[in-house]
């Protein structure tokens, strides 16, 4: 029996410019997405290696359910040893790359080696094999222009994963951008410097051409259809879905502020006086009023029925950026005291075009403002600083290297990072379960590793936060292994058997209802092991010191979850 329906590992070597298509080793077969790439990295990458050197590998892995247009389930995980954290990294994105990969029969794509000459390449992958096209003419081009040229060159039907000038400069905040369903290159594997790793391999872009490919096989189509129906019904019936459709993630701004957990002025307050102007409610109003290309409701991938995304248009109705998400609004808005969605959207476009993580750069700018490099609230100066990154000046490169590095060089100690990765827009002193996630996740500070804000608990109370974070971290590591968007989790949580049924129908497996947690635990186990071998200890599972003793307005909260609780998060290992 072939438990994965003929799918293969594609291995591209950049030293030799070769492609090998291999069978999936037995121990990798039941894994997908985040758990699969953790297995690959632990098996093949020395944890102590130089992240930008030839020994590191970059892995693209679609989740286990990718390829069937199951609503909101076509996500990919991209991972490597991170140049930002020095540990393992998985960075997750939507868009069309995952679907193209599975249409081509790819269980995972592994990029390894490094060219000896400083040259840029486009790696073109199709069922005919791999081609390595010289791409020096694209060097220095922004993400949007690069995507336009590539779509002209390779046709409109391909999927593309590409980097911008940030990845070319190997900045630790550089991400990898994927096309959304409308071919806008803004679905980003943003976190942890994956774009720098792709840049270190001399690759400006990867083209996935799925011509004459086909959907991966389903062993029991009727059972699959039935499970799909159960999942869709649970998803569509869910009250939370309408909120995300109408307000997107930006709806979180007032929620976080209500809990006193909206990062403001470099994480010095949890309340932003002008939260109304950056709220999801206000954004929806202005987008509806502006019309034109503006769309408060937009899907990032084919088949998504939630459509949490948006197109943010300016006063003239012309698109400024798509999507404008809560994390960017928090880190580049309240965190910098910038209360104009238009300014935040322009900054977001710049950061996207540079191919950088808006969370990391927003946090770095907050630290820079604290150091006096610009005044909080000065959006024009913030945009000028982004231009420094584009020009590759030392100051620009510093900011592009992330909040941790910026704090070190500028002598600032209020630096919101764990494992050198910037926190996202949930203040851990006010949302303590998420603080536990920031502290302990093998990924570094990252809300997508286990956000607890929707749990009905007293977020200011330290008791019980570690076990809450544990549950959520396991579940999301499971969803990241399936390729399911967190918002798909609303449907799966209401119909948990559908995960088991979908997997068993697709692969002819006999897994039980706990498969989500089985996958999640395995992903976390492998990630922790990689980090352990890379030299991480319990001392790395801590929040920055200022959060332990500096009270955060408006509740004067400090992070007081005991260290012993933090050390118990992975107590099953």
């Amino acid at each position: 029996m072939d438990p994965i329906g003929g799918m293969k590992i594609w291995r591209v070597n950049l030293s030799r410019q070769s492609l090998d298509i291999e069978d999936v080793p037995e121990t990798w077969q039941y894994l997908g997405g985040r758990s699969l790439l953790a297995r690959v990295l632990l098996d093949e990458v020395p944890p102590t290696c130089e992240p930008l050197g030839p020994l590191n590998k970059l892995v693209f892995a679609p989740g286990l359910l990718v390829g069937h247009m199951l609503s909101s389930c076509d996500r990919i995980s991209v991972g490597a040893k991170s140049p930002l954290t020095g540990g393992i990294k998985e960075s997750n994105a939507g868009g069309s790359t995952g679907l193209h990969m599975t249409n081509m029969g790819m269980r995972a794509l592994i990029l390894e080696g490094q060219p000896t000459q400083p040259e840029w390449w486009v790696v073109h992958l199709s069922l005919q094999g791999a081609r390595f096209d010289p791409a020096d003419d694209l060097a220095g081009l922004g993400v949007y222009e690069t995507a336009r040229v590539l779509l002209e060159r390779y046709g409109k039907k391909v999927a593309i994963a590409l980097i911008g000038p940030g990845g070319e400069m190997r900045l630790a905040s550089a991400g990898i951008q994927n096309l959304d369903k409308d071919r806008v290159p803004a679905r980003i594997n943003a976190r942890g410097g994956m774009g720098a790793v792709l840049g270190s391999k001399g690759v400006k872009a990867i083209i996935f051409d799925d011509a004459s490919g086909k959907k991966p096989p389903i062993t029991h189509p009727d059972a699959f259809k039935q499970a799909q129906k159960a999942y869709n019904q649970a998803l569509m019936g869910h009250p939370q879905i309408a909120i995300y459709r109408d307000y997107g993630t930006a709806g979180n701004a007032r929620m976080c502020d209500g809990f006193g957990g909206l990062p403001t002025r470099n994480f010095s307050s949890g309340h932003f006086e002008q939260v109304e102007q950056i709220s999801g409610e206000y954004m929806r109003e202005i987008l509806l009023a502006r019309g034109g290309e503006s769309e408060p409701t937009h899907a990032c991938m084919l088949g998504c029925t939630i459509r949490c995304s948006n197109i943010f248009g300016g006063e003239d109705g012309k698109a400024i950026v798509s999507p404008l998400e809560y994390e960017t609004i928090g880190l580049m808005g309240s965190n910098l005291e910038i209360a104009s969605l238009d300014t935040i959207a322009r900054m977001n476009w710049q950061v996207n075009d540079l191919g950088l993580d808006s969370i990391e750069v927003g946090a770095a700018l907050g630290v820079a403002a604290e150091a006096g490099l610009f005044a909080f609230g000065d959006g024009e100066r913030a945009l000028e600083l982004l231009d420094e990154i584009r020009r590759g000046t030392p100051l620009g490169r510093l900011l592009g290297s992330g909040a941790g590095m910026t704090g070190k060089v500028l002598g600032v100690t209020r630096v919101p990072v764990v494992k050198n990765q910037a926190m996202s827009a949930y203040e851990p002193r006010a949302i303590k379960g998420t603080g536990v996630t920031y502290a302990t996740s093998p990924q570094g500070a990252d809300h997508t590793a286990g956000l607890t804000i929707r749990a009905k608990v007293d977020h200011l109370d330290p008791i019980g936060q570690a076990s809450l974070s544990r549950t959520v971290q396991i579940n999301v590591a499971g969803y990241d292994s399936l390729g399911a968007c967190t918002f798909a989790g609303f449907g799966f949580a209401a119909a948990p058997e559908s995960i088991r049924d979908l997997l068993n129908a697709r692969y002819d497996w006999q897994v039980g209802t706990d498969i989500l947690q089985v996958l999640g635990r395995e992903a976390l186990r492998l990630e922790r092991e990689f980090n352990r071998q890379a030299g991480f200890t319990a001392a790395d599972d801590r929040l920055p010191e200022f959060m332990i003793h500096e009270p955060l307005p408006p509740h004067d909260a400090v992070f007081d979850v005991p260290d012993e609780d933090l050390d118990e998060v992975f107590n099953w290992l």
Partner: protein
Amino acid sequence: MVVEVHLHTTLQRVEMGRDRRRLLMELPPGSTLGDVLSQLEIKLEPEHLLLVINGRSAEPEQPLSDGDIIHLIPAISGGS
């Protein structure tokens, strides 16, 4: 007593003119959060709502005090 109520996403309303998401409510002493919900005719079941008083999650039975800041957030429990 007077409390400040912030209505989130689908709970905001049009008939209150410009200030549709934030309102001040005058309540008799001894009122609870549940009284606010019923006065505002909020149809969502409490389990589909995050109820927040002064930054802390609260239950409908909770008594209110003058100056309380209340957030009513349509959302569900469950960590992710």
